[in-house]
């Protein structure tokens, strides 16, 4: 099997088949990266991330491998989107072209474990870079070196970033108004619940 680096090089040289293979290999990971925060735009942002990788010739830094590079790009795209000035104004307006944004599900009835719901709420409440660190660790199985490459941090900084993020998550779970048994269950195995939120999560490094 070709390595990511080989595929990227071939794609940049114009080999579309190589590009297809590379995208296919990582699509789902990048997609779920965006899905957490911006589900309505996740597909577009995912595609943009790959494009940015193949276009961004001069900024290649693959020392930690392709995946950290890819997620670094994705992270920048995410932040750029979150910074966009008129985002809130647009969301607050009523528009005819409105999609299913205000609905949790088509049916309005979701079978979602209470623990997962609580966990998602806690995730939503912590800072974005803490979210990202946890995503990369729990869902993408990245090691500290790789996470550091995504976030631009040293290995020691990543270690403390991760433990602080975990603590923030715990604090939020404690603070959210919810039935006590749900909280207890979630805190009983926070790692397990976090991983089970994403069916295709990669093994933890």
């Amino acid at each position, binding site marked *: 099997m070709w390595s990511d680096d080989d595929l990227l090089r071939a794609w940049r040289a114009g080999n579309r088949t190589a590009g297809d293979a590379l995208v296919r290999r990582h699509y789902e990971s990048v997609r779920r990266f965006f899905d957490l925060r911006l589900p309505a735009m996740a597909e577009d942002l995912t595609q943009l991330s790959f494009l940015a990788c193949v276009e961004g010739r001069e900024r290649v830094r693959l020392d930690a491998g392709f995946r950290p590079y890819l997620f670094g790009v994705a992270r920048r795209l995410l932040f750029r989107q979150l910074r966009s000035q008129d985002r809130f104004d647009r969301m607050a307006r009523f*528009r005819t072209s409105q999609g299913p944004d205000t*609905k949790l599900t088509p049916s309005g*009835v979701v*079978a979602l474990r*209470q623990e997962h719901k609580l966990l998602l709420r806690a995730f939503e409440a912590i800072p974005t870079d803490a979210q990202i660190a946890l995503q990369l660790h729990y869902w993408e199985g990245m090691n500290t070196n790789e996470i550091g490459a995504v976030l631009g941090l040293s290995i020691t900084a990543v270690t403390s970033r991760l433990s602080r993020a975990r603590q923030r998550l715990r604090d939020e779970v404690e603070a959210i108004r919810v039935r006590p048994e749900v909280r207890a269950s979630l805190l009983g195995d926070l790692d*397990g619940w976090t991983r089970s939120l994403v069916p295709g999560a990669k093994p933890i490094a």
Partner: protein
Amino acid sequence: MDSGPQTVPKLRELGPGAPIGKYTVVRRLARGGMAEVYLAREAAFVGVERFVALKVILPHMAGEPRFLSMFKAEARVAATLDHPNIAQVLDAGEVDGEPYLVMEYVHGRTIQSLLRTATEREIGIPRGAAIALVIAACSGLHYAHERRDLSGQPLQIVHRDVSPSNLMCRYDGTVKLLDFGIAKAASQTSATQTGFFKGKSGYMSPEQCADEPLDRRSDVFNLGILLYELTTARKAFFGDNPVAVINKIANGRFTPPAELVPDYPAELERIVMQALAVTPEERFATAEELQLALETFVRARRLDASSTARAALMRAVFGDEPYPSLPPSPAPAAEIVTHTELAAVPVLLDADDPSLAVTVARRAPPSRKRAVVGGLVAVTVLLGVAAAAWTSRDGSAEAPPATEASRAPASVVEPAQDAVVGASADADSDDTRDEGTLAGPDVDDPAAATTEPVEATPPVPTAEPTTPEPARPSPRARAQRSNKRKKAAETKRKGPAGMYP
């Protein structure tokens, strides 16, 4: 029944003339998340015919036993409600295992439609009329909240889903609450709560967010949202994802109306704030208390909160909308729709859904709605997921305003416009943007894509390269995950990694 080649109904849709029990479908009115709503006529019994609204549960919901029992409970409770501000439930039944509800036909629009169309056409909603809508909703809700059973025991009905899509205003100004669909006697609820999430995330009370037992004050909170939105023309609670919205509701985070509307009266803002208090104890104790506060405000300010004010608003936003009519003879529907004098039968030409108004579909180019649905189907295939559920809110409830153009047979909504709408990298418009993204430029063209063009139409290498494997690997089940969760993950996920099923 349908006849002729053009009258073949789309899959799972009831075409004009389709019989359901003693009712005959005229056209589809709208499609919601769990049901399709049809305009139908009740068969002449002793010479009297009338229009009714038929709410038929969508197959994907009809298959869920818990939903079904909920639907039946809904019908039972709703049928006992009799109030001018509640759409009367007339009947219920089942065809081929698909349950339906028969309601009074409300000749008007939802408040959601009102807010969207008014915004789009830049029509301000007069404060008096806005408050008048909420007052009427208060009245209907208070009636329901006060209902008792035959032995005099309070039924403790809570609507649970008071939202702009469940409140309609008739063109004559009469306000009707819809869908006591998930209203259930409070006594029944606690047992069936686990794992279920009801309501639209932007229209839930803090108690609903916390999965706590609900009482009428939950509905009062939702009335507060309606009041906020109608008087500011902005959403009270919104966010990048449903969970963000829920967190805002739970923490009472919203922009005070006076920050959005410069001359917003302090007294009205106090009313809004009290209705939207996070703690139920701090809210108006009943919908009637809220109603009284609003009536006092309206009187003090000498605002016009009459039903004629509401009717005038409806006319200003939607124009004149004639009551549905059919040719006098009981002609088969297939003949009706192919009749040459179609312009004389506005109900058939003004159909929200071209697939039902056969003649429209045949003559007109693909309408916007059809294009949208087509795009969604494409995405479904592309991602290999059951995104079909998301097509359910295809916006078909939002018919274009009743202008001359929209009523003409060859009503043209250029597909090209859709591409423009869909092209914006807009968090809300994912229902319309599919074709734009699929038709992206080729990656081989270096000019086609810039490095980080987030604001523009995201180009795509080609449709194929980015296509992930259609079949998702079956999710590795964890011990904690119940079967229900797994099933939900497989059937309801929005995308390959959709975290909000």
